[in-house]
């Protein structure tokens, strides 16, 4: 149970950090300078192109060696999840921002709205709604990916299950039980996100990205 809480905690840390990183890099990619775009593309390619496990090992072992910074497995794990999720969320946000069509940006300009006003009143309210369904997918996939934290020895659900399985010599039951916990958690969360989406849905704003 304690392991489950760590799993949930890590998922939310990763999602929240990834949310901020995702929005910022999406905005940077859509509206930013050439250099920003290149940096963002490199960031995204690294985190989307390589396995989370390798990233975790890299951040835990290599970053301290590189910078002298000393951090524990938990911090390294959380930071990696944030960076990883940010790279994926960037894609969703970018799609959503671009789904707010150019004609609306032109219309906002014709009213005399500044760039920031346009972003705040026109682009983000639409993009944030459009992004909910893909964002739900990211939540699921990140939630399940937290099992990779086992390689840093973080005591989340999978890791705890592995120790219990080893202690009790009943791996079948233990892993089935762990599977059930993951499954119920993911299914319930999905229902909640669907409900939220229905709540804030606006007719005509269902865009597939």
């Amino acid at each position, binding site marked *: 149970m304690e392991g489950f809480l760590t799993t949930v905690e890590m998922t939310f840390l990763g999602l929240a950090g990834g949310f901020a990183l995702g929005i910022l890099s999406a905005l940077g990619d859509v509206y930013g300078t050439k250099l920003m775009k290149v940096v963002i593309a490199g960031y995204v*390619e*690294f985190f989307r*192109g*390589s*396995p*989370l*496990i*390798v*990233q975790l*090992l*890299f951040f835990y*072992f*290599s970053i*301290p*060696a*590189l910078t002298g910074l000393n951090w524990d497995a938990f911090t390294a794990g959380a930071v990696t999840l944030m960076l990883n999720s940010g790279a994926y969320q960037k894609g969703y946000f970018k799609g959503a921002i671009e789904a707010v069509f150019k004609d609306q940006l032109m219309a906002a300009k014709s009213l005399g709205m500044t760039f920031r006003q346009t972003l705040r009143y026109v682009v983000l309210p639409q993009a944030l709604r459009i992004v909910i369904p893909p964002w739900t997918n990211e939540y*699921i996939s990140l939630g*399940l*990916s*937290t*099992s*990779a934290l*086992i*390689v840093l020895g973080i005591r989340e659900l*999978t890791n705890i*299950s*592995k120790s219990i*399985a080893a202690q009790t010599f009943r*791996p*079948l*039951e*233990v*892993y*089935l039980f*762990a*599977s059930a916990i*993951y*499954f119920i958690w*993911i*299914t319930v969360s999905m229902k909640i996100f669907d409900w939220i989406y229905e709540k804030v849905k606006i007719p005509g704003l269902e865009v597939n990205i």
Partner: protein
Amino acid sequence: MFTLENFLFLLQGVPNTLAISFLSFALGFALGIPTAIVKQFSPYGLGYVADAYISIMRGIPVLVIMLLFHFGMAGIIPMFKSAFLSATFALGLRSGAFQSQIFRGAINSVGRQQMMAATSLGMNRWQAFRYVILPQAFIVALPGLGSEIALLIKDSSYAFVLGVLELTKYSDIVRKATRSFLYPYLIAAILYILITFPVANYLDRLGSRLKTKYGLR
């Protein structure tokens, strides 16, 4: 120090990584198409089985499935005594669920109009599906299949936890042996990127080229 020797040693992990990914992709393909068809036509009310399969695979970490196979079921199914096969089958099983969704999406995008046109020629539902819908759906599905392969290549790294000698495991061995903390994982990450990128990119481009050629959306 990280040397050329170490690098060549690290490369030995690549064949297993590729083997796990491609075998599990093939397994997923073999499972994915029938699942998509079962969901589409739901013969004998089997649609629910397909639904259950998909949502279970969507709701459990693939690593837990691997552990379940290798440690939990090796006594029942001898094949799972092999860590390699446990990992491959876990990934393949999940990929089957994912690929069935890719095919479903593609089938739906081909649309009703084509189905009606085919039935107006006197084809039955299955014939229309087999000769008209499926070939088009396959083209539409290509980019999705590309990302699925990329996902499998990356997720094959979970086999590291079972001790399979694949790329991640090798980089870990190199790290421990050389006490070089920086390079092994970085090189491994770059190798993964170098492997995934061309595959996904190729299928993506092939997909859009064929789509343009045949005027599909």
